[in-house]
């Protein structure tokens, strides 16, 4: 018989990490990754494996579910339970799995096409329900596995195999979508910024609720240099804004620039000449209302530095918890269900 979820051990916690004592290597499977050499996915895989031991879950209690696309391969390389599902539907499987098995830690690995095009509907609904799943979306702004067509995050006017005259579709803003869909944790990082990525994945994994992490990822074959102009080592400090909770929004190699609110709009200001850090916006990832996070989700180079880090992290009851609560309450109110009573409910009569 299958294990009844209520009799399994209570969910494990970070405190167990010290007890379980796993290392990155424990999360490396026996399968060799098959991404193109130089692909940003290698880095995301490595940082994911590195982040794992800290969560305190034994390997068998972790499940990676993916959809279709280059990102979809990741579960094969994780020495955990894994399910490589179908295009766009990973969040649907994750929702069912988490509902049936609240004790598991569930990750969804997806891409910009998988999550926002074919799987857009499922993504937004998993977020509004606050399904306790960590969604990591590899955003390379291209369809890589199918060899180079526009994706929902591709730039307007982009020339690809399917848009030789330029894309006529306006790109979608993934983090704005996540916030609008009520994800309780929304963050962004970059494949090549390994420390930041690992820290972001660690924060994401610790969050309870619907977690969405956009990883800006380079596809060196079909969309090389997608984010080069602001992610390269020599320019990134001036062109990206690393969000830190409770800190003023300062950026720049010299830490001499900041974000200030001007009316309803953010603006980039030069510190000095009467402008101090006190004039800048202070990041508050736990803010009850989503306005600050929404504003940050709309900022993009070259008008603004590109924000990375945690935009929003708020607590609300998770889908599986609410589902379980209703069962507990019903049992407290009506008692444990009795099959014979259910079968014989309503008007009955007896034939002798």
């Amino acid at each position, binding site marked *: 018989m299958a294990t009844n979820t209520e009799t399994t051990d209570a969910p494990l916690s970070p405190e167990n990490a010290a007890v379980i004592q796993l290392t990155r290597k424990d999360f490396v499977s026996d399968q060799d990754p098959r991404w193109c050499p130089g692909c940003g996915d290698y880095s995301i895989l490595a940082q994911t494996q590195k982040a794992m031991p800290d969560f305190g879950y034994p390997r068998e209690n972790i499940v990676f579910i993916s959809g279709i696309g280059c990102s979809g391969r990741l579960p094969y390389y994780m020495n955990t339970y894994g399910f490589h599902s179908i295009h766009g539907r990973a969040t649907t499987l994750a929702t069912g799995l988490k509902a*049936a098995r609240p004790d598991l830690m569930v990750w969804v690995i997806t891409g910009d096409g998988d999550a926002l095009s074919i799987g857009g509907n499922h993504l937004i609904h998993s977020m509004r329900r606050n399904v306790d799943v960590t969604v990591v979306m590899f955003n390379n702004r291209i369809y890589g596995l199918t060899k180079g067509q526009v994706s929902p995050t591709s730039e307007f006017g982009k020339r690809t195999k399917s848009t030789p005259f330029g894309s006529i579709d306006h790109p979608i803003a993934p983090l704005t979508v996540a916030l609008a869909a009520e994800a309780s944790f929304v963050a962004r990082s970059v494949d090549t910024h390994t420390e930041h990525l690992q820290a972001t994945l660690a924060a994401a994994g610790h969050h309870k609720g619907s977690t969405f992490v956009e990883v800006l990822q380079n596809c060196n074959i079909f969309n090389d240099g997608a984010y080069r102009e602001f992610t390269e080592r020599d320019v990134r400090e001036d062109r990206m804004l690393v969000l830190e909770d409770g800190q003023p929004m300062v950026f720049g190699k010299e830490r001499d620039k900041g974000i200030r609110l001007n009316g309803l709009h953010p603006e980039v200001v030069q510190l000095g000449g009467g402008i101090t850090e006190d004039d800048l916006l202070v990041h508050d990832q736990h803010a009850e209302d989503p306005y600050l996070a929404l504003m940050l989700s709309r900022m993009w180079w070259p008008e603004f530095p590109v924000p990375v880090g945690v935009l929003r992290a708020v607590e609300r009851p998770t889908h599986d918890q609410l589902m379980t609560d209703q069962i507990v309450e019903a049992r407290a109110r009506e008692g444990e269900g009795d099959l014979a009573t259910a*079968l014989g409910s309503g008007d009955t009569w007896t034939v002798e």
Partner: protein
Amino acid sequence: MSETQQLEPEVTELERVTIRFAGDSGDGMQLTGSQFTRTAAAFGNDVSTFPDFPAEIRAPAGSLPGVSGFQLSFSSSDIHTPGDQPDVLVAMNPAALKTNIVDLPPGGAVIVNSDAFTPQNLGKAAYESNPLTDGSLKSYKVFEVPMTTLNTASAEGLGLTSKQIDLSKNFFTLGLVFWLYERSLEPTLLWIEEKFGARPVVAEANARALRAGYAFGETTEMFHTHYRVRPARLAPGTYRNITGNEAAALGFLAAAQRAGLELFYASYPITPASDILHQLSGYKRFGVKTYQAEDEIAAMGAAIGASYGGALGLTGTSGPGLALKSEALGLAVMTELPVVVVDVQRGGPSTGLPTKTEQADLLQAMFGRNGESPIPVLAPATPGECFDYAIEASRIALKYMTPVLYLTDGYLGNGAEPWRIPDVADLAGIGKETATDPATFRPYSRDPETLARPWALPGTPGLEHRIGGLEKADVSGVVSYDPDNHHRMTLLRDRKVAGIADDIPDLEVYGAAEGDLLIVGWGSTYGAIRSAVERLQAAGRSVAHAHFRHINPFPRNTDAVLRSYRTVVAPELNLGQLSWLLRARYLLDVRGFNLVRGKPFKISDIEEEAERLLLEA
């Protein structure tokens, strides 16, 4: 009621009566019909019902598309259908009369709400003259009852508006019909109290209307006779009335309980399957988890996810939803996980006839997926059987690690019959051992008998593995593009499902083991076919009936049964899908008899076709 006995009116004894209540979709005809059904069933009659309602929730009042109907047949003997033709038609307005009178045989009784036959309503029903006065109804017994007026009088002094009072008029109608058929008002009065107890004025209006209708029958001289249908001699036991959808919901609950598994039901609202979601949503105290997904695909995905996690994963839908689930169903085939998909079929293609019945999803169930993608297909034959086959579908899904398609239809799902409540101890024990031993575990090793792969649940130490939609290597389960492996795995999946034939009962024949004509059916046509065959056999014809509950795979003796009759015909509410399968599989000239009118077969349809085939032979 004691008063009626004192008056001793003329009583005519009947074996069976079929009544159709028809009115505007806002007239409460479904409620009227189901209340009569409860009362007749509780009295001990065998009952069969068929609600027939429009897809529009409220089409314009009084219009032809807005007519809603509920037909029920009750009998002192065993019956299989809600009757071919009504004996009595209750028409609450001209539109209801116009759309239903065609089904009433000459001599049949029509009870109309004469108040509703206004020039305006006649116009909405496209009547050029009033049928109550122009002689067009002269071949029927017409009873004109000013229901609105009488009902309004009964509600006097309650302080309700005329619109509120009008809402209770169906209880007046019900009261009148109760008098005609000697039925007690008590069950309905109790029901009114339970249902409307919080609104005592409404409860009082409804109770008064019910009593007023009854009293009208008793005291006017309009109805000379009332009718007696004695209790049926059903097998001993405790009974309740049940629809196919109710029985399915209970069956899956029972299956999960018997298997010791959590039931997870994911569904997207769709007619006529939504009632299963509604019912299972109420079973929280059983630990049942229900999930109204954002769409059909999500419901399928969530069921697969739950089953991967060790629950009994279930999803329910109708034809258009099954089409959307196809790709994910293929994933369940590839990953060999136990999920059950309920398809309560309706008229198609596309949105089709959402509230009407049809059997045209059989080939979709069999083949509606990419690649070689075999799935066991089951189809209960009666509302009560929906319970048994929910357990059977779950048993097969778990034992063989496979998705299973469970086909009913709008007629079974919404139709009701008395159901003998089973003893929980008699229910089959079902289930599947999960894998636990890392030393022997291989994701795609197989049980030598069933060919099922192991069920390895996340959370089991040492069994970490990866599955998915890509082809997997035999035994090891790693991704494999090897040509020979794909061929072998395709054959294994096919053999696994085909092998279930050794684990299901033989096809049963009702009638002689050989003869002139065999009528084969599946699903909801059972009642009409069985009734027709009973009549044909009584008339000395060499006719037998065999009904498939297992369609993929077919029972082992199918070939032998089919070859024992000179002619085989398959009546179906489609253009010949079972006959197509049987012809393809057994190379036999199985004839089709096909009607797609959104309605079930009449007994006479099948009887006449059988007579025609017997003459032809």
